[in-house]
C-alpha cells in the first residue's frame, strides 16, 4: 500500500558479540487513511467546482426617437429583416416586404448564418468606392474594408412568441458574422400576420 519506503530493514552489518542490538522500529507509516481523505476531498472539490464562469454579451439600444427627420435612413436594398417566431423558427425577407408577401421566407437557426453571409457578400459586391468614407476610415485608423459593408443593416424583430434564447442567439449571430449595424425593433402587424399564416400552413404549434 501507499507507504514511504525508507530502505531500512535488514541491511545493517553485523556487530560483534556483546553489543546489544537496539530494537529497530519500523519507519514505515501507513498512509492509507491520509490517501483516503485526500481522495475524498478531491471528489468533493471536483463536484463543487464551478468551472464555467458566466460571460456577458453587450447590448446597446438606441434612444427612442419620435422625430422622423432624426431617424437613420438606410438603403432598402441592403437591409435584411429577420423575424423570430415560435419553436425556434426564423422568418426573413430582403429589402422591403412586398404587398403580396412573396419575398417572405422561412428558415431555422442553422440556415440563418448562410443567409446573413450571402446578403453581406451581395452588399459588398455592390459597393462603389466612397472616398468620403474611406478618408474617414483612414483618419480613424480603421481598415478601408469597413466601408464596403457600411450599408448592410440587419433588422431583428422578435415576435411575442420568441424566447429569450432566440434573441440572444440572433444577437450572437451578429457577432459571429461581424455585422456592424443591426437594430432590434418591434414587429409590424403585417409581418406578424404573415408569420401566423405560415405557421398555420406549416403546422407549427
Amino acid at each position: 500500500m501507499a507507504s514511504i519506503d525508507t530502505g531500512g530493514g535488514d541491511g545493517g552489518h553485523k556487530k560483534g558479540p556483546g553489543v546489544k542490538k537496539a530494537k529497530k522500529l519500523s519507519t514505515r507509516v501507513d498512509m492509507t487513511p491520509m490517501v483516503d481523505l485526500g481522495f475524498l476531498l478531491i471528489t468533493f472539490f471536483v463536484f463543487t467546482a464551478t468551472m464555467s464562469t458566466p460571460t456577458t454579451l453587450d447590448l446597446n439600444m438606441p434612444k427612442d426617437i419620435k422625430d422622423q427627420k432624426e431617424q437613420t435612413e438606410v438603403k432598402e436594398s441592403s437591409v435584411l429583416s429577420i423575424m423570430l417566431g415560435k419553436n425556434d423558427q426564423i422568418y426573413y425577407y430582403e429589402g422591403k416586404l412586398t404587398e403580396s408577401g412573396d419575398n417572405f421566407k422561412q428558415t431555422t437557426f442553422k440556415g440563418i448564418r448562410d443567409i446573413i453571409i450571402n446578403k453581406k457578400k451581395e452588399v459588398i459586391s455592390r459597393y462603389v468606392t466612397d472616398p468620403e468614407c474611406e478618408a474617414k476610415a483612414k483618419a480613424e485608423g480603421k481598415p478601408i474594408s469597413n466601408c464596403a459593408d457600411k450599408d448592410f443593416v440587419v433588422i431583428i424583430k422578435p415576435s411575442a412568441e420568441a424566447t429569450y434564447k432566440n434573441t440572444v442567439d440572433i444577437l450572437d449571430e451578429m457577432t459571429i458574422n461581424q455585422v456592424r449595424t443591426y437594430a432590434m425593433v418591434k414587429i409590424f402587424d403585417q409581418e406578424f400576420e404573415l408569420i401566423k399564416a405560415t405557421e398555420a400552413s406549416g403546422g407549427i404549434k
Partner: protein
Amino acid sequence: MPSVKIPRKSTDTDMTPFVDIAFLILSFFIMATKFKPPEPVEITTPGSVLSQKLPENNAVMISIDSSNKVYFSVLSENAPEKYTTIINGINTSQNLGLSPAQIANFRKTFMVGVPFTGLKELLSTDANDQPKLKQPGIPVLDTLNNQLFWWIRESKSAFAGEKLNYLIKGDGKSKYPVFEAVISALKRNEEFKYNLVTALDDIPSGTELYIKERAGEKDLKK
C-alpha cells in the same frame, strides 16, 4: 528434473508518485474553486461566443426565470451602504412604511421578486427562509405599472457619479415580451447599455469572427 523456480514478486507497489499527483490535483481544485452563492431561482442562460468577464461590483442584476418572473438584485459588496440608499429611496417614493429592521434585511436579501405591496412581507422574512417564499415576480408587462422602473431609478441615484452595470440574466425559455419590458424600464431611465449574462460557447469555425480571432492570435504570437 530441475524445477523452474518462479521468483516471487512483491505485490506491494510504491504508490508515492500516485499520491503526489492526487494531492497536486487536490490543491489545484482547492485554489480554483469559487463557491457559488445560493440562488433562489434556477436560471439557465443561453450561450454566446463573447468571452467578456462579468462585473461583480457596481452592478444591478435583473433576472428572468423560465416562468417569465422578473427579479431584481443589487451587487455591491464593495459599498454595502448602497443597499440602504436604494431601499430607503423605494420606501419613500412608494410610501411603504418599512421598519428599520426590514430596511436592514434588504442587505441580506439576495433577490427581490415581489411587487411593492409584497415587499414588507419579504423583508420581514429571515434571509435564510426567503428562498422558500413563493415570489410572484416584479410586475413589468403592464406599461403603466412597470415597477422595475422604480428599482432602476433608485439604483441609478444611489450609484450616481459611478459606473453602474446593468446585467440582464434571462432563462433561455423565457419569452421575448418580458425581456422587452425589462429593456423598456431601463430605457425610460435613459440607460441604453446592458450586459446580457451568457454562458461561453465556442466560435463556429469558418465564420468571419473565427477568422478574425485566429488572425488576432497570430498577431500576438509575432
